[in-house]
Each structure stands twice: as structure tokens, then as C-alpha cells.
């Protein structure tokens, strides 16, 4: 699972005020507004200046006009005419005083709007000037190049309130422009913010989408794996059921053939050969059903602590013989290999199957490499391979053969799926390896490339407990029992029961029989010197396991040997046998039975 990291929402956003200040548009707007205000003030100032100049010019012109018109009146002392002229300026409401002075500077004629402020009696010394609320202009009265007097005009400057009314409009316009600037800036800033957030959300969305796609992909993979597992399970159920029935039948056939051979009941040579051929056929059939059971994970396993390197090395001779001259066998064995606990026979069988497959993939020769190593599987890889994370010992079988296509790979574990020619392969080799490894708590992985070769890796779970020594292979001759060692055989199938009873008696043991659990318990109580109970697991009514439990309640030291072709969960939990329980797989051979029973009876109480 890919961990998704998401920023906390609070980390992204900044205080709004700070954000506004940060925004360049906002700054531009503020500067723009400031410039507008400055421009407005400058405009007002300039306008004021210009107004005063214009006013001065205007009043000066009025003064000059008056001076020009009043010449004759002044020259000829016509005060009434002069008065008419100065009065004419009354139409301009801003003219406060209009006066004419003669050459000596004495007042000749005057008009004053405000009687409280009459024209000065003598000509004011200033020529043209403005003061706070008014402006004074004087103009010479000339005729024929001779100055004969002076005109004095005093005008009010437009009241400051009136002017500011005018400037107020300008100020209003400036303020509105500034406001619009600010608004635009704010809008721009807001827009930028929104865009920013949108793009961020877009990115988050894209991230989420990517996550989702990854999850979907993972889920699809998991579903595919699950479907595959379910298919294998279903096939396993089917296979297991058929194999179990076949096993029982084969037990009968093989047992009877063995009896025929052992007791020399067949005297005819031809008949002997036929019996031998039938026995071989039955053996092969038994091997097939074993594999089927192994695939179905119903192969009762007998896992023991095991040195994988030793096992691989010990197979060397067998492999050479099996693979032939054209194939170079190379083993790469890691040192310090962890310990595993698996069924050694099954492991050998699996490796042999893989080797045979490899050989068949290399018709013109090649190299087979068996490599052991410690492997740690982390969660990510484990889920992808439908396995548990942890420590494993891996055995990799690599060939330099034709390889497998993707389609072939998908079906490789299915029983009876084979690419080999009809009659050449059973299609059970990889199935057996698969079922065996699953049952042993491990898994199988195939890596293959068409034209380059294939690597099949078996992952065996590491065990922490390394106390158990690997038992030495019992090489002695078939151990014989004694008649005082009484064995109770419980089997519902009369033929199978008869066969087992026959074999045990052959081995020299004393035998009592029961056809179900109930009668077996009765016999146990009635016969205290029974040393061992040899029971089928699949019994009608009380099954083998329940029978064993009951029996051991009554006889705590009782040794129990199960036999089954079809383990189910009655005795097999998690691919392991429960403590104190031994198992003999159907169909079993004379030798296997002999060894097992002898070891159990000669060992300490279970």
C-alpha cells in the first residue's frame, strides 16, 4: 500500500491581510491610487495657480480697457464721464473697486461696491499684486504718448469655497478613479487567489486520481490473485475428492498384488510378470494420486526440521540420472541458511518435478541451476504474491530453456495443464509443488521469459526453533514386530482394513480390528494391552481424530497412527500434524508401514 501524504489544509493558507499585501496587483493598485491623489493635488494646485494668473490677466485687461476709455474724461476733467466708465465695471460682481487717479495720483473717479471700503484717496503704490482675498491692478492712462493718470482696479478672487467646490468635483473624480483602481486591484488579487487555489485543488485532485488508479490497479491484481486462488481451491477440492477415492481403490489393488507376490501364490512365470506389471502400474497410479493430493493440499505432510542444502546436495545423483547427459547441473548453496521444517519427501518430489520440467524445456541441452538462499519477503512483495511477509529459505531452480509466455504462466499451477506432448507429462509437477508449498506455509514464484528460460522459486518458511536434529535416514532392514505388541486397526472399508491387518500380521504384530470408533473404544476398554491404535481418519460417525482424542482420554499413553488419503482438517492444521500424532499416507507401502510402526513402538510414549 502506498502511503499518501497530504498537506494539512492550514499549512497552505496565509493570513488574508498578509496575502493581500503580498499580492503585486494590490501594490500596483495602491501605488496607482496614490499617484492619482498626487496628480489630483497637483492639478488643483496648478489650476489654482492658473486661475490666479488668468484672473490677474483678466483684471489687468479690465484695468487697461478702463484706462484707455477714460483718457479723454481724465484729460478734460469730465468726472461724470469718468464715473460712467468706472461704473460700467459694476457688471463684474467680483470687481470691488474701480478708480481713476490723475497724473498727480489724486482720486478722479471711483466706484466701490462696498461703501465700507471706498477707493483710497491717493493712488496705491502697488502696481499689480494679489493678496489673500483680492487682487489689485493698476494701469496707466495714456494719450498721445503722455501718461495723464492711472486706473486702479481691485477684484475679488473667486471665493475659496466656490473654487473648492470646483476642485471637489475633480477630487471626487480622482477618488472614484482611485476606488476603481483599488477595486480592480482587489478583484485581480482575489482572482489570483482563486486561481491559485484552483490549481492547488487541481493538483490535489490529480494526486487523488493517481492514488485511486494505483488502488484500483492493486485491487485488480488482488482480485486476479483471489480468482486464481479460488480457482485453484475449486480444482483442489475436485482433485482431492477424486484422488481420495482412487487412493482407496489403489490401496486395495496394490495390497492384493503385494500379497500375491510375497506369498509366492503365483507360480506361473507369465502370471508373475503380469502381476509385477500390474503392481508397477498401480505404483505409478499411486504416485499420480499423491501429486493430486499434494496439489489439493490434502497430502498429509510430515514436516521435520531440515537442512535444505544437504537435501539439495543429496539429490545431485538422482538429478544427474533423471536429466541425462545434455544438461549441466550447477548448485549454488548459501552458507548460514536458515532452518526450515518441511516434508522432505515432498520437497524432493517437488524439486525433481521442477528439474524434469526444466529438462523438458531444454530439449537441446542447457544448464540447470539450483540455488539456495535466505530471503526476506516484505509486506509489499508478500501481498503481490499472495503470501505472508517474513523470512524464508528460497530454492531457485533455473533453466536456460524456452521459457513460458504470460498465458502459460497464468495456468502453470493448474493440475493437468501441460505444454508437453500428450503422454509426456502429467501436468501435475508444478501443481504438486504449488500445493505442497502452500500447505507448508510457503509459496512458489515463477519468473520466465520466452527464449531465455525460467526460474521457479520455492519459499520455505523459516523456523525459529532449531533444537530438533535432523533424523538420520533409517537404512536398516525392515524391522519386525512381535506378537505381544497388539495393534488395534480401525477402518470402515473392509477391504482396506483386511489389507492393513494382513500387512501388520506379516510384520509379526498382533492385531485386533474395529470397523468404527464406537466399537474401537469398546475393544480398547476390554483389551488393556493394546500398544497402538492404527486408524483411518475418515470414519463414519466419530472420525479418526475424535476417536483418538477419546482413546487417549482413556489411555493417555496410547500411540496413535493415522492413515488417510484425504486428510481434511481433522488432523491437519495449517499443514502440520498435531503433536503426538503420526500419519501414514494412503496408499502406503509395506516398508513405510513397517518403519513407521516400529519407530513409534520403539520410541518413548507419545
Amino acid at each position, binding site marked *: 500500500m502506498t502511503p499518501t501524504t497530504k498537506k494539512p489544509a492550514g499549512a497552505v493558507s496565509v493570513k488574508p491581510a498578509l496575502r493581500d499585501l503580498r499580492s503585486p496587483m494590490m501594490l500596483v493598485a495602491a501605488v496607482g491610487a496614490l499617484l492619482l491623489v498626487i496628480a489630483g493635488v497637483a492639478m488643483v494646485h496648478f489650476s489654482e495657480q492658473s486661475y490666479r494668473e488668468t484672473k490677474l490677466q483678466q483684471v489687468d485687461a479690465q484695468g487697461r480697457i478702463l484706462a484707455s476709455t477714460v483718457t479723454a474724461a481724465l484729460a478734460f476733467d469730465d468726472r461724470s464721464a469718468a464715473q460712467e466708465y468706472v461704473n460700467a465695471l459694476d457688471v463684474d460682481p467680483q470687481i470691488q473697486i474701480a478708480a481713476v487717479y490723475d*497724473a498727480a495720483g489724486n482720486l478722479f473717479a471711483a466706484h466701490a461696491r462696498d461703501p465700507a471700503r471706498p477707493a483710497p484717496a491717493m493712488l496705491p503704490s502697488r502696481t499689480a499684486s494679489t493678496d489673500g482675498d483680492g487682487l489689485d491692478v493698476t494701469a496707466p492712462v495714456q494719450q498721445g504718448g503722455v501718461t*495723464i493718470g492711472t486706473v486702479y482696479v481691485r477684484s475679488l478672487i473667486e471665493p475659496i469655497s466656490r473654487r473648492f467646490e470646483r476642485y471637489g468635483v475633480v477630487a471626487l473624480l480622482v477618488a472614484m478613479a482611485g476606488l476603481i483602481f483599488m477595486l480592480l486591484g482587489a478583484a485581480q488579487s482575489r482572482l489570483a487567489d482563486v486561481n491559485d487555489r484552483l490549481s492547488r485543488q487541481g493538483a490535489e485532485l490529480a494526486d487523488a486520481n493517481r492514488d485511486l488508479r494505483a488502488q484500483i490497479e492493486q485491487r485488480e491484481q488482488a482480485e486476479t490473485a483471489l480468482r486464481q486462488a479460488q480457482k485453484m481451491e475449486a480444482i483442489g477440492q475436485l482433485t482431492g475428492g477424486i484422488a481420495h477415492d482412487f487412493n482407496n481403490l489403489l490401496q486395495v489393488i496394490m495390497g492384493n498384488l503385494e500379497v500375491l507376490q510375497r506369498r509366492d501364490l503365483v507360480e506361473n512365470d507369465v502370471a508373475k510378470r503380469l502381476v509385477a506389471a500390474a503392481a508397477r502400474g498401480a505404483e505409478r497410479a499411486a504416485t499420480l494420486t499423491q501429486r493430486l493430493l499434494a496439489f489439493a493440499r490434502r497430502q498429509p505432510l510430515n514436516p521435520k526440521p531440515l537442512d535444505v542444502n544437504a537435501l539439495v546436495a543429496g539429490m545431485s545423483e538422482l538429478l544427474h540420472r533423471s536429466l541425462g547427459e545434455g544438461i549441466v547441473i550447477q548448485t549454488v548453496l548459501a552458507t548460514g541458511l536458515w532452518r526450515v521444517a518441511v516434508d522432505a519427501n515432498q520437497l524432493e518430489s517437488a524439486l525433481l518435478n521442477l528439474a524434469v520440467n526444466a529438462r523438458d524445456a531444454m530439449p537441446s541441452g542447457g544448464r540447470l541451476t539450483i540455488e539456495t538462499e535466505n530471503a526476506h519477503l516484505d509486506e509489499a512483495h508478500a501481498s503481490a504474491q499472495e503470501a505472508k511477509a517474513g523470512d524464508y529459505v528460497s530454492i531457485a531452480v533455473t533453466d536456460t530453456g524456452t521459457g513460458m509466455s504470460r498465458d502459460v504462466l497464468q495456468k502453470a499451477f493448474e493440475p493437468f495443464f501441460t505444454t508437453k506432448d500428450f503422454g509426456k507429462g502429467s501436468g501435475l509437477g508444478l501443481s504438486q509443488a504449488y500445493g505442497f508449498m502452500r500447505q507448508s506455509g510457503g509459496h512458489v514464484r515463477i519468473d520466465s521469459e520466452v527464449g531465455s528460460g525460467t526460474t521457479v522459486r520455492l519459499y520455505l518458511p523459516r523456523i525459529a526453533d532449531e533444537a530438533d536434529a535432523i533424523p538420520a535416514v533409517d537404512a536398516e532392514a525392515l524391522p519386525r514386530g512381535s506378537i505381544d505388541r497388539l495393534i488395534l486397526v480401525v477402518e470402515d472399508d473392509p477391504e482396506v482394513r483386511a489389507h492393513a491387518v494382513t500387512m501388520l500380521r506379516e510384520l509379526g504384530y498382533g492385531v485386533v480390528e474395529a470397523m468404527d470408533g464406537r466399537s474401537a473404544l469398546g475393544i480398547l476398554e476390554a483389551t488393556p494391552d493394546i500398544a497402538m491404535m492404527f486408524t483411518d481418519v475418515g470414519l463414519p460417525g466419530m472420525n479418526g481424530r475424535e476417536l483418538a482424542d477419546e482413546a487417549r482420554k482413556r489411555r493417555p499413553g496410547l500411540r496413535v497412527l493415522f492413515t488417510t488419503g484425504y486428510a481434511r482438517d481433522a488432523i491437519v492444521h495449517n499443514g502440520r500434524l498435531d503433536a503426538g500424532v503420526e500419519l501414514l499416507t494412503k496408499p502406503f507401502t509395506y516398508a513405510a508401514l513397517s518403519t513407521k510402526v516400529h519407530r513409534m513402538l520403539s520410541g518413548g510414549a507419545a
Partner: protein
Amino acid sequence: MRRALRVALGAYATMLAALASGMACAQAIPLEQAVKATYLYKIAAFVEWPAGAFESPGAPLVICVTGGDPVGAVVEEAVTGQRANGREFEVRRLAAGAPSAGCHILYMPVQAATAARLEAVRGTPVLTVTDAARDGGAQGIVNFVNVDNRVRFEIDLRSAAVNHLEISSKLLNVASRVRPKP
């Protein structure tokens, strides 16, 4: 009321004008005569003579006065140091019967052969000034009158046109009466 004020102002102004002309011996000469003398040169500034009326651009403006003293002396006194359109004034006293050639302004304070003199300069660029207020006889282009005890003047634009003179409208504005062109 208004009229009374105007009369008072007029008297006052007349006196002032006399003072302004700088007449030292104001006591000996009637104030009215002094004012008229002053007006003589002041009027010159409002009158335009034809180009050929003067010998040269710097030539003085000749004021001819008939009737002898004391008026001649008063006029001489009045124009001393005055200028009009850049020209100085020259005062000639014309004896009875003396020709008025070279005169630009011909002032005839007394009614003696006035009509003959007016006729003599008719058609020539001479501004004729009469003092008809007193006598009511023949009038020149400018004719002093006494209105409300003030010296005013009448202007005859018809005569001015005959003598090829242009009178400024400003002067007309202050004239007590204007006889328009036909």
C-alpha cells in the same frame, strides 16, 4: 441733488486742473482761461493730422493764438514742457491779419475776424478752436463752452472732415455736443 454734486465737483476740478498746469501767476489770469489753455494741448493728443501736415516727424505742433495777450502768454505758459504724440508745442501769436500758414491749431479766443480766418484755413489741416461760449459767433472745429460753470467743448465733425482731421471718439465722448458729419 446729483446736479448740485456735479457742479461742486466741476468747480473743484477746474481749480485742480489750473494748479496742475503749474501756473505760478494764477491770480492774475482768470482760471477759466488757464483751463482752456491746458485743454488746447490736451486736445492735440486726440486729434490726428494728415501725414503732410508736418514737415518732419520731429517737427513741433504749432499752436497759433490770435488776439494777443494775455491769452497768448497763458497758452505759452501751459504748453511749456508738454508733448503730444512725441511732438513739442510751439506757440505763435498772430497779429490781426497775419496769415495762419503753418498753424496746426488755430485758437481764436476773441471774436475778431473769426469767420474770415475760419474761411482762410478751410480745407487745410488746421484744428480751429473758438471760444463761442462767450460770444455765440462763428465756431471752429472745437468750440469751448461753459456748462454748469465748467469749461466744456463742442466738436464739429463736419468742419473737421473738411480740414482732413480725425477726431478720436474718446474726445467725442467727453464733448458737451458733437455736430456729426453730414
